[in-house]
């Protein structure tokens, strides 16, 4: 038993940090309905800012800490509130993508602002230890962190229970519209909540980075741990979030004690993800999406002109055919990767764009396909096609597993569940040696299909183009046919669809399984392109990026998937490192612009092109544009029709 105490101390320390973070997440969700996926990014950025202030510019702790907590964090909080207020009524995937874009933006900003993406930060508290009892050593940092978390929780609960502001907050949480009617400024409440939440993020960031180090990537991942206690508290109950966070920290740390063997160690890091997944599935419908009102985006009628279709297909085919004349070598290889990436993106167009099911786990399926191909395709690529098919079949039960939460969850909560699934795959499945060969990776042979070997860069390029062509054609046919209609029925009005005879359970599971299998099939080619693959290639971040690019490209359109591949290609091109560091920034700014143009640039540019081509014709503009385009150009907001909150009378 006595051996357990040190782990308890460590657990309370990390639990305290999770507690700050999960309370911060709950607070903004409660008051504004935004689940802040960028929370870790804000914490990370604050950590770097503190490093710059204290260690970079040598401003004393006594000044730099207040500067961070009272100036920088509140300003960031207000900026975030301003940004998210604009998107609160948009669909969940847009909200998520914008939060992800903020995250990417902050990650890209750090090296530009602070000249590096890794730092080591000393604790703000003394690191010396004192003895508790006979043998237990506790550092002052650990003690003060716990005290700080407790103090923050008490201050927050005091604020919410004793003051008029607390009353206003509760009114807003209960019913935003009613609160507004009674003269409570819900914007004021949500601004304050964002400020407090960001201050908590800054504290947690500074505290955490002094023990796990300060870098733009892993620090952000660490904060995903705090999602679990937040969801366990149903995203509204602050004391519960605090309690679950401490419990999670302690449990994780105790597992660490027994964690010398590999399995337990993996389980320890997977624990928060398992808890997150379990909580979401368990609570199911009891989780409440807090929205003042829904706005549905009106989409314009799909252009079904066969000539136009044939024209764009011809343009793409000709473009792909002459490309190898212009570029070769590794650049052509990059294009092949992007073509396969676009094929993968199309599976997400079907799943998210048409069926309305958000998935943050699509790259896990790509991984399943790639590793299967690595194991099963013989040397020289014999049997590659079979290996790809087997990979697709293996992906089916996994697809059903991700699909199961979708039976009870949608929107934000489904996104969180799929995210947890991807992270569980990352920690428990992919690192296994027999799955992936561990972090040294697996080699995947270039395919030999029907006796044709696609080993060289050029031949593999053709193969990738054929793959994308097949996927694009398949998706277009699907969209025009009954299956596409069925998916869109389910997306637009699940209640209506089910009363007309659509079996939602079956349809959801089938679309998750089908899109997973398609992604896995393409994954075999993705693996063959890279030659060796390891678990990092399919980590959760890759799935996030895929969703980001697909939404940015236009999630409801086949060309949107191709645009996603195009943006991906830009990131691969050999550019100077300065330009490269600005690309994520560009992507982030583009994604934020989505708040204005939720349908993605593809639809928009099609509309603009119609508009401009109309200018050069002699037909009246109105006729060509349904009289709709002029208001679109001048006020995009106008097109968003506002509807009262769907209370889903019947669920």
């Amino acid at each position: 038993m006595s051996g357990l105490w040190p782990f308890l101390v460590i657990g309370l320390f990390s639990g305290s940090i999770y507690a700050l973070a999960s309370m911060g997440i709950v607070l903004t969700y409660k008051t504004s309905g935004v689940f802040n996926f960028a929370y870790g990014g804000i914490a990370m950025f604050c950590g770097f800012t503190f490093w710059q202030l204290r260690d970079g510019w040598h401003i004393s702790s006594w000044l730099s800490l207040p500067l961070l907590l009272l100036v920088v964090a509140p300003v960031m909080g207000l900026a975030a509130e301003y940004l998210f207020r604009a998107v609160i009524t948009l669909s969940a995937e847009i909200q998520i993508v914008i939060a992800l874009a903020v995250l990417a933006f902050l990650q890209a900003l750090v090296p530009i602002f602070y000249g590096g993406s890794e730092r080591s930060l000393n604790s703000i508290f003394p690191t010396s230890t004192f003895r508790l009892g006979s043998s237990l050593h506790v550092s002052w940092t650990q003690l003060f962190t716990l005290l700080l978390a407790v103090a923050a929780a008490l201050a927050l609960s005091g604020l919410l229970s004793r003051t008029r502001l607390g009353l206003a907050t509760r009114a807003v949480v209960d019913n935003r519209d009613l609160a507004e009617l009674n003269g409570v400024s819900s914007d004021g409440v949500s601004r304050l909540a964002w400020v407090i939440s960001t201050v908590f993020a800054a504290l947690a960031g500074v505290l955490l980075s002094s023990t796990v180090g300060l870098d733009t990537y892993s620090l952000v991942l660490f904060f995903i741990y705090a999602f679990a206690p937040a969801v366990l508290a149903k995203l509204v109950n602050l004391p519960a979030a605090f309690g679950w966070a401490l419990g999670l920290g302690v449990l994780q740390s105790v597992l660490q004690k027994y964690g010398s063997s590999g399995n337990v160690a993996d389980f320890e890091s997977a624990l928060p993800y398992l808890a997150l997944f379990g909580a979401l599935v368990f609570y199911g419908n009891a989780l409440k999406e807090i929205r003042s009102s829904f706005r549905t985006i009106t989409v314009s009628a799909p252009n079904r002109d066969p000539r136009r279709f044939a024209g764009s297909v011809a343009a793409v085919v000709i473009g792909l055919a002459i490309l190898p004349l212009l570029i070769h070598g590794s650049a052509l290889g990059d294009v092949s990767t992007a073509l396969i990436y676009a094929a993968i993106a199309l599976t997400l167009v079907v799943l998210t764009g048409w069926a309305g099911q958000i998935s943050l786990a699509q790259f896990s399926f790509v991984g399943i396909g790639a590793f299967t191909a690595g194991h099963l395709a013989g040397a020289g690529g014999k049997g590659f096609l079979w290996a790809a098919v087997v990979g697709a079949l293996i992906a089916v039960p996994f697809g059903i597993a991700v699909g199961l939460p979708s039976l009870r969850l949608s929107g934000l909560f489904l996104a969180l569940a799929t995210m947890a699934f991807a992270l569980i795959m990352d920690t428990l499945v992919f690192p296994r040696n027999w799955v992936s060969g561990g972090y040294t990776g697996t080699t995947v042979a270039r395919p030999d299909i029907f006796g044709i070997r696609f080993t060289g860069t050029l031949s593999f390029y053709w193969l990738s183009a054929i793959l994308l062509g097949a996927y694009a054609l398949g998706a277009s046919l699907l969209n025009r046919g009954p299956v596409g209609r069925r998916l869109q029925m389910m997306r637009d009005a699940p209640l209506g669809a089910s009363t007309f005879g659509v079996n939602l359970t079956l349809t959801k599971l089938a679309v998750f399984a089908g899109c997973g299998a398609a992604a896995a099939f393409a994954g075999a080619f993705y693996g063959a392109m890279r030659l060796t693959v390891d678990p990092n290639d399919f980590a959760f971040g890759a799935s996030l990026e895929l969703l980001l690019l697909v939404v940015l490209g236009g999630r409801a359109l086949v060309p949107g998937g191709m645009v996603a591949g195009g943006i991906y290609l830009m990131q691969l091109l050999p550019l100077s490192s300065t330009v490269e560091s600005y690309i994520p920034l560009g992507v982030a700014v583009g994604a934020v612009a989505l708040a204005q143009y939720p349908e993605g640039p593809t639809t928009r540019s099609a509309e603009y092109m119609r508009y401009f081509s109309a200018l050069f014709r002699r037909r009246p503009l109105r006729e060509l544009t349904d009289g709709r385009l002029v208001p679109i150009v001048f006020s995009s907001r106008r097109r968003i029709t506002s509807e009262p909150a769907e209370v889903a009378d019947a669920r």
Partner: protein
Amino acid sequence: MPAEDPLLSVREVTVHFGGVTALSRVDLEVNRGTITGLIGPNGAGKTTLFNVITGLVTPRSGRVRFDGTDITGWPRHRRGRAGIARTFQRLELFGGLTVHDNLLAAWEASVPGAVLGMRRGEGRRVVDEVIEKLGLGELAGRVAGQLSTGQGRLVELGRALAARPRILLLDEPSSGLDQAETEHFRDLLLGAVGRESGEPAVLLVEHDVALVMEICDRITVLDFGQRIAEGLPAEVRSDPRVVAAYLGDSDAA
């Protein structure tokens, strides 16, 4: 005979939402080839009763029988395929699909195998017929999400008809329509009900009492979740409890 063998019968259905009793031991019958009216003040439980019939709400007790079969425990989609089609008071259109595709999708959902591409010609024929009958030709290519509420109600009706229903449940189909549109709608409805063949029968929730009295064969009246009257329009009109429920609203409030 219709009176002995109703197409739809609801027996003693009770529904609670938390502390609210939305329906308490409600009975309802719809005979083949007829229009049955379901009226009552706001919050009487009309929409809830529709939700019970279509499977969106599970009743605490009571049974629903359709064409002699007990369907109380059936999942929604099975009821849809069995021939129960409805419109929604709060529109539930497939906003991203065109009007034409809304109708086609409803037909496909109600016909086994249609999602795999079977009987495609028949689907197009049915949809074209309904579009023709309702005069939706102008709107057919428009995206449903861009329609006005009035147009949306018409499309909801068309969608329900395209599903080839055996019974048609209409939830306030004329609300938001102007005088001329309402008259147009009344004619459509009278044309839609299968007087001869017995199908579809219609169950109509409607606030326009004059319209209900005019076109319904029988009327059921709900108030505070209870059935307070049932009978021919003339009987219901003169029923003192109905008069009290409608006029007495202000006393109760």
